[in-house]
């Protein structure tokens, strides 16, 4: 459960949870106090999300991932523990402060969309603005911008029931972004969609994040989705976070047996970058002419590296050499019996 924060993100955390407990049922607090951890509680030990980062919480159903999200958005109240949003104690907020926080800082996308059935696309998107008390003309204009942003132009007067699942979720996304929140919660947003649409929506999501740069907490039960989207993945089981790490690290160094099972079926060459398996040592005399980028996915450059007899130089974004890789490494990663143990960059 150790957490490694890389240097570039050493700023103040946006979301910080420690020892959060959620017990369901009546007299939850009393039960928790008496139980010494024996009650069926959802426990979240540590979870930190930095600015402009996609933190994906992954777990199977019943693992407590949605409960965690609901505790952090305070849709349900955590039974014990600390949840800090920008250093502010979420659990201590008064109802009015909470409303203010949600109106200005938070946006959330729901699995079954949670659209208001009696409002049109435009009205749904403008809803958070109207709730805030913005004048109708302003909020409608802003909502229209959001319609453009998510590519629903021409459908602004449709009702949710007249849209496909993917389109409905676009409305949900647009609505959650209408108030320009800093923190964006997504609760299994693409789980209800067809695989092809899901892929399309994931691309759309990454495109939006490229433009908007939010702090994101994304909940999913789909491991490959987590790998595709995440900067950090937290894997949950029975209410406890098993591992919180970079995607590559989770594949290469699963912390527990449970996590390892998820990683077994993952095609590494399609997920890992060259940077995650290279050797940091560089011996300039033995390098070939070929240069590969540090963050290139292995599959895209494997053929070139395999045809080189010598080690290949790995470069960062500025073109400086940061490490090297040999064809044998790629072969052992692809076909080796045991997962390669490599240091993490």
């Amino acid at each position: 459960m150790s957490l490694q924060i890389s240097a570039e993100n050493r700023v103040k955390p946006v979301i910080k949870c420690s020892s959060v407990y959620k017990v369901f049922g009546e007299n939850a607090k009393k039960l928790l106090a008496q139980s010494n951890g024996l009650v069926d509680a959802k426990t979240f030990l540590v979870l930190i999300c930095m600015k402009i980062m996609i933190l994906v919480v992954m777990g199977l159903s019943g693992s407590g991932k949605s409960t965690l999200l609901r505790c952090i958005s305070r849709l349900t109240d955590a039974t014990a523990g600390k949840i800090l949003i920008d250093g502010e104690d979420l659990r201590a907020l008064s109802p009015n402060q909470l409303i203010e926080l949600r109106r200005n800082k938070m946006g959330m996308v729901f699995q079954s969309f949670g659209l208001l059935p009696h409002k049109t696309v435009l009205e749904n998107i403008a809803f958070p603005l109207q709730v805030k008390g913005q004048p109708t003309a302003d909020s409608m204009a802003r909502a229209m911008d959001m319609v453009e942003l998510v590519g629903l132009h021409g459908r602004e007067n449709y009702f949710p029931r007249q849209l496909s699942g993917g389109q409905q979720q676009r409305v949900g996304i647009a609505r959650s972004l209408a108030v320009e929140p800093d923190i964006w919660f997504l609760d299994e947003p693409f789980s209800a969609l067809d695989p092809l649409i899901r892929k399309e929506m994931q691309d759309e999501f990454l495109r939006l994040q490229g433009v908007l740069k939010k702090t994101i907490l994304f909940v999913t039960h789909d491991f490959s989705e987590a790998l595709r989207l995440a900067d950090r993945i937290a894997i949950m089981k029975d209410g406890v976070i098993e591992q919180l790490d970079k995607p590559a690290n989770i594949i290469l160094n699963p912390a527990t047996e449970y996590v390892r099972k998820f990683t077994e079926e993952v095609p590494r060459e399609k997920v890992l970058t060259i940077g995650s398996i290279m050797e940091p040592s560089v011996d300039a005399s033995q390098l070939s002419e070929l240069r590969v980028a540090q963050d290139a996915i292995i599959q895209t450059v494997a053929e070139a590296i395999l045809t080189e007899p010598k080690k290949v130089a790995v470069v960062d974004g500025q073109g400086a050499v940061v490490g090297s890789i040999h064809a044998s490494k790629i072969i052992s990663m692809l076909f080796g019996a045991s997962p390669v143990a490599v240091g993490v960059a």
Partner: protein
Amino acid sequence: MSYLIPRSKLAQFILLVVVFLTLCFAIEPSETNVLWRFPALFAGLPGAINGFAENLMYEWFPVEVYDPDLEEYETSALVRELTRGFSRSILFCIELIRDILLGGVKTIVAFTSWDFVDEHEWAVWPALPWTVVSGASIVMGYALRGTGLALLTALATAYIAIFGQWEPAMETLSFVLIAAPVSCLLGMGLGTAAYKSVTTETILKPLLNVAQTMPHFSYLIPVMVFFGVGDHAGAIATIIFATPPMIRLTLLGLKRVPAEVVEAGSMNGCTNRQMLYKVLIPTARRDILIGTNQVIMQCLAMAVIASFIGAKGLGFNLLLALNQLRIGQALELGICIVLIAVVLDKLSLAWANRQTDYFPDESFFRRHQYRVMFLAVFGLCLLLSFLGNLVFSGGINYFYLIPHNQGITTEPFWQSGVDWMVENWYHGLQAFNNRLILDVLMPMKTAFLGMPVSATFVLIMGIGFIIGGLRSAVIVGGFLLFIAFTEWWDRALITAYMTSFAVIVSAIFGLVIGSLCAQTSLASRAILIVCDTLQTFPSFIYLIPVIMLFGVTDTSVLLAVIVYATIPAIRYTVEGLRSVPATLQDAASMSGVNRMQRWVKIEMPLAFPHIMLGLNQTVVFALFMVIIGAMIGTEDLGQYILKALSDKNGIGNGLVLGLCVAFIGLAVDHLIHTWADQKKAVLGM
């Protein structure tokens, strides 16, 4: 001990019937035998209620009030003053609308005095010409929904005016326009309160159950005692009757709002108030609209019944026509009521579904087209009605108001139809009538009356035990015990016999027609539309055609009850059968079932719980209609309720009788619901 209780339900049931029959034959019918009839321990209950009501109205908590007529203070009871004030405000609202629609002086009187109106001749509110009201409502229909609704409104208003029913129709409308919104708001308020607090819900639930199974007539008596007689009393009785379904549907709707929608609301920063008005209520709109629809239907169904306590309008005229056996006129009036119900329903539905365009790129005229249209039509119709003064001679301006006796009437046509039928079918109908009464109804009635009270208890509580265990047995027994301790056990048995007969026939018809129609989707849709339409008719309407055929007999009442009670049986059968999942149908097809096997082995078992709920509705509908049937002469509980209406001290009798009917309904309701719930649980629904 345990081996004495047979395992299988069927064995239990057979044993029960054997015990029941043994008791029936073993117990001697005699006045002194407690096992034959229980003593009327509750005989004093009506008197006690009368005393309580009197005390409340005339003695409890005296207050000093100023009497403007006598110009002095006098002592009066608090409750009496409160109800008086309430009556006055309701009456004021009704008369305000009535003055606007039909003209008059009541509103002006309310602000000044009769003397003022007598002195000044100009102090009369002029009536709106019917053309103006009609035109305005057509524009409203067009603005809300378009041509279709405009046409319907035009047809309805034209029909009412041309048939000379404008005045009574507007009188009815004026109290519906007060009663319906008040019921809706009250129902939504209480429904929301029940949604927010579990305590409120627990308190409201049993009250709603009783309120919805009490016959309409029993409401009239307490209303009469506390609020007097008149239009306001009619409106108040209507409000009391129409609010419970609204509460229930509001609560149901709010409970069905998906959790994620509520969460989305909170994440968007809704305050409690915004959550309620912008998220919860609009999302629960479908059920709330069904509630509104029910309220409007109840209001118009009560139009006739409320006329018993002085509500003017179509209902009163319909009652008169029925009493005079003027079938044609009753039919015309009935159609007026139905038309008003349909138009109000569609208008309210369209209003709730209206849509706004936020980026209108339109000229001034397009943006305000409906307002302009409204003004234009208003002016035009006003002009037309003035021109009417010049066109029509004889002092009647047909563009202003078509008086009651000057409209078109189809009465002679219907009367001749009735005459023709009596002439040609008399013997056939009479033979059928006699057969039914002698061979079926009389023996059934004798059998019901021949049951010793102890045997009835054993049978009903036994069924309760078989279906729902000890708890159900006690609940059902409790309901029966109340009835058995009143002095009306025999009357209740007659009500029960008529209801049972009607329910059995309705259930058979409903199952057969429903199953046949459910075979194709086209037929299902058609029959559901027919059911919808028939349900729009106030219950009184059903009496018209049967009286036409059979005159004033038990047979007429029973036929009306059967027709009325078959509607829910058909509806629920069709819905239940059609909702069998497609995958199951496919699985059945692949197992090679034939049509009959599919019906018996797949569709019926799965649709059974839903059909049972339909049966429950059938029982409640039948009970209501049997009581209303007392109007045309049956000798059950209903007749006594009617008697209580005209009795000065009727409140106690009326309430206890009403409770008797309600408890019959609730006992059946409990048994059926328990059974259906068990079946549902077994089927995993």
